[in-house]
């Protein structure tokens, strides 16, 4: 069956399912007894398995199947949820993600079997669990690669047993190529193809990837399951040019109890290290990615597009009519105007389609923080907010890595250890806050921790030691300038290098990534209280919910996120505090600002009641007097351009449905 047309769907849904598995698994860890979560996990895993199977990704299917077995035992209560168990399940998810990544890159699931994981999963099933771990590590030390007889990994042994049961032949074939052979990998490929036509290659030493990359000398070993006999195979192989010798021996596996090769701990390492392996990038560059970038689009937004296109068609018909009847100029002008309005809105609508919530990036952080928290032995509470803030798809793709880095930094360098925290009277659990919000033309993402903060003196000293700045200059630098040193290349204050952060990749990389996106990053810190990294990403096409208000005959937009509520107040209720108009509202004194005056709009005569929009910034509240409300609307923020960027109280402009422009008030500078 040709499944290529379903590939895109498979990839998207698998990524989705894996993300949901991650989330649910986290929840399960927090409430181990919750059967609903367990059922949900089981259901998703089952879907994933089915889809992988349909697409012919058998390794992926197998791994999921093994994980599913565990889940089903969990459901029946045969096994209890434990941290080790959750760890292994998380590792399995990572492995599955690797499969999906590989599929995105190359279109096939690759050759990694994750045998260790499958074994660990099976061990849990057999109730072995932890006890096995210690002895496994010893076993893992002697790796199976040998020159003579191949030691097969456990999964392959199972295959061999199965083959023996079905009375198939299992051979180990030692093949030596002729020393004159030029294209060794091509020869190997032909050999593989020949063998695959008569049987199945279940194992190779060196691994198949290496053979394909010509990372072998002249000989390699293959283990093949086939119904053919030794001589036949030999004939076939000797028929391939440049094959020197072929030695075939029968492989048999004793039916003894599973001797585990590896366990959970080394498996984790393997997975983590995988992307670092140097042969990876090479294969990557050779193969064209099969998956293109996609954006999931809210059906409403597509409907809006559809409506606009239908309007375009109406205009077209109108224009045709005019052309035919040579009617009045006026209707022609009107149609053109209409056309312009529609195209403008169409442009906006298409822009909106490109916008995706930062949630997509944020989603994976709880899982990451869990792992980091376990690695570091710190208790960390991650609070996320503003996941719904939207960013352009291209920005979303790029912002993940810098954020991961900042979060890891916060966990590793920012937060103190539990003992330290308790000693200085802080809560046991360190808090890392990740929030995203819209600020005028920017989307701001903040990573805040309540840890030890950054020691400015220490940075200064370190900078002098490393000759980043001279002592003289350093003494004149402001705190902010010194903090900026953190973003200089290879500047790191911690001497120890930990697994979590500080692997030679510094904040400079974070900064350059953000700068490339046209954004900028700064840090605020209070020694002993914590640090706050603020990432600002500029947006020419951000979309926000806004309240449209009328002032005189002008229309302004106030970002809805700033608005607390709208009140009608009596003019007679206004009081004065030091010449400032204030009102008392629910026991709070709120200053009143006449927007007319600030914005230079002609003020209308005071009516008996004033309409006041109460806006909030931090814990400050202010009431803006407006003339009328127009309503709530989703608006696309556009920049006023470089010439008018100096005007502080205007955050940008937006285009209204009638094609006119409305300015967006920048609440932050108005309060």
């Amino acid at each position: 069956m040709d499944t290529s047309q379903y590939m895109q769907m498979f990839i998207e849904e698998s990524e989705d399912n894996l993300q949901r598995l991650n989330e649910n698994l986290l929840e399960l860890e927090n409430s181990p007894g919750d059967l609903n979560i367990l059922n949900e996990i089981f259901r998703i895993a089952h879907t994933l398995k089915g889809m992988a199977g349909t697409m012919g990704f058998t390794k992926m299917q197998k791994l999921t199947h093994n994980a599913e077995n565990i889940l089903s035992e969990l459901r029946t209560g045969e096994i209890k949820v434990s941290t080790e168990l959750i760890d292994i399940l998380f590792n399995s998810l990572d492995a599955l993600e690797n499969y999906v990544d590989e599929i995105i890159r190359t279109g096939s699931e690759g050759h990694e079997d994750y045998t260790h994981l499958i074994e660990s999963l099976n061990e849990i099933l057999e109730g072995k669990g932890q006890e096995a771990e210690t002895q496994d590590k010893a076993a893992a030390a002697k790796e199976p690669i040998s020159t003579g007889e191949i030691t097969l990994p456990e999964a392959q042994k199972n295959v061999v047993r199965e083959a023996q049961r079905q009375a198939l032949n299992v051979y180990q074939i030692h093949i030596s190529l002729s020393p004159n052979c030029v294209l060794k990998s091509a020869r190997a490929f032909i050999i593989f193809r020949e063998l695959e036509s008569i049987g199945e290659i279940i194992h190779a030493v060196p691994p198949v990837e290496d053979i394909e990359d010509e990372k072998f000398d002249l000989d390699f070993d293959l283990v093949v399951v086939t119904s053919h006999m030794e001589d036949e195979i030999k004939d076939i192989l000797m028929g391939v040019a440049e094959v020197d010798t072929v030695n075939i021996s029968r492989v048999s596996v004793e039916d003894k109890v599973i001797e585990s090769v590896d366990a959970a701990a080394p498996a984790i390492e393997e997975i983590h290290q995988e992307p670092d392996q140097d042969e990876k990038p090479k294969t990557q560059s050779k193969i064209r990615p099969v998956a293109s970038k996609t954006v999931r689009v809210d059906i409403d937004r597509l409907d809006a597009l559809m409506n606009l296109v239908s309007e375009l068609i109406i205009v077209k018909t109108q224009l045709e009519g005019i052309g035919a009847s040579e009617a009045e100029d006026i209707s022609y002008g009107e149609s053109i105007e209409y056309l312009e309005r529609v195209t403008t809105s169409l442009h906006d609508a298409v822009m909106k389609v490109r916008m995706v919530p930062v949630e997509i990036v944020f989603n994976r952080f709880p899982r990451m923080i869990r792992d980091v928290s376990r690695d570091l032995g710190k208790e960390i509470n991650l609070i996320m907010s503003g996941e719904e803030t939207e960013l352009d798809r291209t920005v979303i793709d790029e912002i993940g890595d810098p954020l991961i880095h900042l979060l890891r930094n916060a966990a590793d360098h920012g937060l103190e250890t539990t003992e330290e925290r308790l000693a200085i009277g802080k809560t046991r659990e360190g808090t890392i806050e990740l929030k995203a919000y819209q600020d005028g033309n920017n989307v701001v993402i903040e990573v805040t921790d309540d840890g030890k903060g950054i020691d400015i003196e220490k940075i200064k000293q370190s900078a002098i030691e490393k000759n980043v700045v001279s002592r003289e200059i350093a003494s004149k630098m402001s705190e902010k300038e010194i903090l900026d040193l953190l973003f200089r290349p290879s500047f790191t204050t911690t001497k120890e290098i930990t697994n979590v952060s500080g692997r030679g990749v510094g904040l400079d990389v974070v900064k350059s990534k953000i700068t490339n996106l046209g954004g900028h990053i700064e840090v605020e810190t209070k020694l002993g209280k914590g640090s706050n990294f603020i990432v600002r990403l500029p947006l020419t096409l951000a979309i926000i919910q806004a309240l449209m208000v009328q002032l005189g005959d002008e229309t302004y937009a106030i970002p809805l996120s700033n608005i607390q509520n709208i009140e009608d107040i009596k003019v007679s209720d206004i009081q004065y505090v030091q010449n400032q108009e204030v009102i008392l509202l629910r026991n709070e004194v709120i200053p009143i600002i006449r927007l007319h005056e600030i914005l230079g709009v002609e003020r209308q005569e005071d009516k008996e009641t004033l309409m006041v929009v109460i806006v909030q910034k931090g814990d400050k509240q202010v009431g803006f007097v407006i003339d009328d409300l127009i309503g709530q609307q989703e608006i696309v923020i556009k920049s006023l351009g470089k010439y008018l960027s100096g005007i502080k109280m205007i955050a940008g402009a937006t285009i209204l449905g009638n094609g006119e422009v409305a300015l967006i008030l920048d609440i932050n500078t108005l309060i």
Partner: protein
Amino acid sequence: MEWMIVETSVSTKQYVILQLGEESYGVDIQSVQGIEKIVTVARVPQAPACIEGVMNLRGEIIPVMNLRKRFSLKQKEHDEDTRIIITRIEDSQVGLIVDEVNEVIELDDEEIENVQIIDNNVDLEYIAGVGKIKDGTSVVTLLDLKTLIEDTLL
């Protein structure tokens, strides 16, 4: 008698001629993106006085400068002939409100004179020269848009 052949490389530029009251001005067509009929312009608070506001040009928000205000001329109601010249300097667009746009003319270097008016009251910075048109019977003031716009707005 010896003849010498002289290569004269006369460079010709095209200018958009616009009208402000009685005076004609020319702007280099290279920096003109289009000419639009007057549209509704949203006033921008605290903007320089000559900035009428911002307009929507096919989805882009661009500032609009009123040249009459910029040159401190008497204000005139917008009418049928009023146009907005959309200019682009580097990557930024600015609209210029003018009374009228007349034509596009070609001027050789030779037809352009440098201005030498010694009068401190006349701001010469943004005048690129004076072009002679209609066989020298009439003149247009050529504007250096970059200086004009950037001096006003930056």
